[in-house]
């Protein structure tokens, strides 16, 4: 391309010629720029250092923000907007053998409320502060392949209430739901049926249907898999990711939170109605907590959200400070070189050439800073991976960070560079 345009400039398309000329001029500027920068080594070095630090920090901070946002948007697989969760306490002690009966009565009462699509009593729910986990094996007495699974205990209404989709098999029948207290009052608890989630099915029974297979959770008594649900996560979503996300449901009626599925628009009214229904029946009972699941989700992720905001704030502040530094030093340089600018203008240099001179100078400085900064970004990412178990910085952040700093540099240098270009040659020479 270079040779073509040199031999017959008239046949070269205009755009190419323009770009080429600009590049040529920039190259011609290179030598004076380099010699100036050599004389202002310290100031130039400071700009490079500042850009490098900013680049290293901002790329990693943006990556951290991204991982937080991913966590915030994780899907629990539940009909979140339709769920309300109630916790009930009794100021009198209840005998444990009576719990299942009371829960069954409460369920009847809650399901009878108009607008309640489904209701269940479950030992745990996502975003709650309860979490039950058990070791699961394929052979009796904890032998053979062993995994740890999140253990749900609820009645046959858990699936419709949580909004879970059955992939295979069936739900529990009402008469398969057992009294939790009775089950655990013997040394060898027997629970004949269990529903597992897909993650657990894939782990324990890869390549075959889990239906009809048996698993061992409580010593020697087997439980037969009767169904597989698509999504059912660990109550603490991040643990679902780090621990593989196996979960299972046992058909047990015992104490726990009451979960109601209602029309999203009716949630507040339904909370009131359910609270009244539960408290009226027995005055010694108090609904200590009643809130929509979306509210629990917001509270659960509050820390992540705060962290993302903080990181974002620091990124903006960093970029601003860096821009301030570039403006400050470039202004100083313009002032220092007033005489040189005047001479060049007097010798026929256009405003555009002066402008581009400073822009090109800035490009050189920021590019050096960015190259060092990208190395720093990768080193910092390595450090974060080791100390905080964070994922590696994806490569896309590197060009993105570089582009951002190039733009920042060009915008920051625009103001002083334009002032330089606008200098009247005579005035510049006179000063």
């Amino acid at each position, binding site marked *: 391309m270079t040779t073509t345009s040199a031999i017959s400039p008239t046949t070269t398309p205009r755009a190419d010629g323009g770009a080429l000329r600009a590049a040529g001029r920039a190259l011609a500027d290179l030598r004076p720029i380099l010699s100036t920068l050599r004389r202002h080594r*310290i*100031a130039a070095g*400071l*700009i490079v*250092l*500042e850009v490098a*630090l*900013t680049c290293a*920090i901002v790329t990693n*901070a943006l990556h*951290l923000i991204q991982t937080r946002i991913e966590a915030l948007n994780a899907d629990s697989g539940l009909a979140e907007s339709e769920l309300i969760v109630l916790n009930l*306490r*009794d*100021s*009198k*002690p209840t005998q444990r053998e009576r719990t299942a009966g009371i829960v069954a009565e409460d369920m009847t009462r809650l399901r009878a409320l108009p607008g309640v699509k489904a209701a269940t009593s479950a030992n745990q729910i996502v975003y709650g502060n309860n979490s039950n986990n058990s*070791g699961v094996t394929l052979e009796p007495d*904890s032998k053979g392949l*062993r995994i*740890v699974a999140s253990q749900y205990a609820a009645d046959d209404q858990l699936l419709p209430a949580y909004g879970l989709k059955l992939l295979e098999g069936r739900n529990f029948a009402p008469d398969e739901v057992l009294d939790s207290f009775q089950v*655990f*009052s*013997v*040394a*060898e608890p027997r629970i004949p049926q269990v529903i597992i989630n897909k993650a657990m099915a894939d782990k324990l029974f890869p390549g075959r249907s889990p239906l009809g297979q048996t698993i061992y959770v409580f*010593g020697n008594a087997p439980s037969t898999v009767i169904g597989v649900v698509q999504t059912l996560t660990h109550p603490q979503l991040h643990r679902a990711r780090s621990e593989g996300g196996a979960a299972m449901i046992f058909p047990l009626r015992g104490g726990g939170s009451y979960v109601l599925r209602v029309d999203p628009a009716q949630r507040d009214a339904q909370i009131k109605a359910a609270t009244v229904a539960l408290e009226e029946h027995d005055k*010694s009972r*108090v609904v*200590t907590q009643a809130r929509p699941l979306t509210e629990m989700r917001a*509270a659960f992720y*509050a*820390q992540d959200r*705060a*962290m993302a905001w*903080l*990181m974002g704030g*620091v990124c903006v*502040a*960093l970029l601003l*400070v*860096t821009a*301030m*530094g570039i403006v*400050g*030093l470039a*202004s*100083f340089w313009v*002032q*220092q070189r007033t005489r040189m600018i005047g001479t060049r203008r007097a010798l026929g240099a256009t405003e555009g050439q002066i402008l581009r001179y400073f822009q090109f100078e800035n490009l050189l400085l920021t590019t050096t800073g960015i190259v060092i900064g990208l190395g720093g970004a990768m080193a910092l990412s390595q450090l974060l991976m080791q100390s*905080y178990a964070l994922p590696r910085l994806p490569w896309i952040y590197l060009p993105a960070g570089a582009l951002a700093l190039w733009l920042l540099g060009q915008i920051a240098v625009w103001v002083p560079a334009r002032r330089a270009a606008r200098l009247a040659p005579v005035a510049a020479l006179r000063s």
Partner: protein
Amino acid sequence: MFLHYLELAWRNTLAAKGLSALMVLALALGIGACMTTLTVYHVLSGDPIPHKSTRLFNVQLDASDMVGWRAGDEPTFDLTRFDATALLRDKKAMRQSMSSGFNTAVSLADAQTKPVFSSTRYTTADFFAMFDAPWQHGGGWSAADDEAEARVAVISSSLNEKLFGGANSVGREIIVRGQPLRVVGVLKPWHVKPHYWDLTLGSYIETEDFFLPFSTAMAMKMGHWGNTDCWARGAAGGSSYDLNASCAWVQYWVEFAKPEDAAAYRDYLVAYSEAQRKAGRFERPTNVRLRNVMDWLGAQKVLPADVRLQTWLAFGFLAVCIVNMVGLLLAKTLRRSGEIGVRRALGATRADIFKQFVVEAGLLGLAGALLGLLFAQGGLWLVRQSPNDYARLAELDASMLALTLGLALLASLIAGLLPAWRAALVTPAVQLKVQ
């Protein structure tokens, strides 16, 4: 002379208003961010009981079975009730206590007062002396009370406020799970951060409102809030809280007269573990832990990782701000080469020039510190608005205030050294010729 420099600095700062404002603002932002995160770090990583944290130790034994065992793992988090009771009976330390957490309704015999659901700790006699409980009225219970399943209770100042309107309630009766207990002690407001004796319900939760003897709680069939880790046959058909259940859920702490006594106690724990292994109760290789308060908090990673990350981020930011300030100061200094040349020609030494510019940087640092302090207050206010359970602890104290001022001055002096040195290098003749 210093005053003269100060006056010069002030005049020069005013002369380059825009540039000076930029520098002060950037420095203040960096200082503000650093102090906000450092304060949170400082508050959360503090020693909850400074004068005896080296003498208070948490005890762990590995009582679990071999399922899932891996060499080098931490022992079971809590103790079984069986082991805790055995260690307590042996009384090998100066003081010792076993305890666990719960939440229960506390009410009065009259029907008017609404029951108050209160965070509960059932424990043994030494607990209050070990953890330095501050008494408002009365005191704790005795070992004999533990033995006798005595119906006694200690309540917090806020529960005393709710139930008795703040009056001295020692000797009064409260109703818990339908049974009467006699108040023997009322605590002063007591906020222990972190909640180090039991971290299973959150590291920064409020100190409990209601205390009663462990034996009494068991007799009243109280449940338990927090970790319960069962293995083998677990509760074996009974309750997880039975004496012989294979479940760990009890926190056990000991206090020694001096930190060196820990070695002998560790030997005792090893011997106990070995004996249990011989008896067939323990299956795992002997693996005991005896950690003092700060080691315990470190091992349990009580300080949120985010807080440490934030602090590093803020210091990175401060570094950029300092580099920025060096650059701007340098520009500002060299812009005044002519003035420096004249002063040098009139007899000022290099040292004079150097001092003058350092004072100028210091002045900017002071301004940055004051504005940074303001930013830090704003930042901490923001932190307190976030819903973490530790957020409300974020307050600037005197030591952090001093650190802020120190850090800002140090940062600005570091930033000022290079430009001041460059200024001192200006040669009078060249500058005058250029003029």
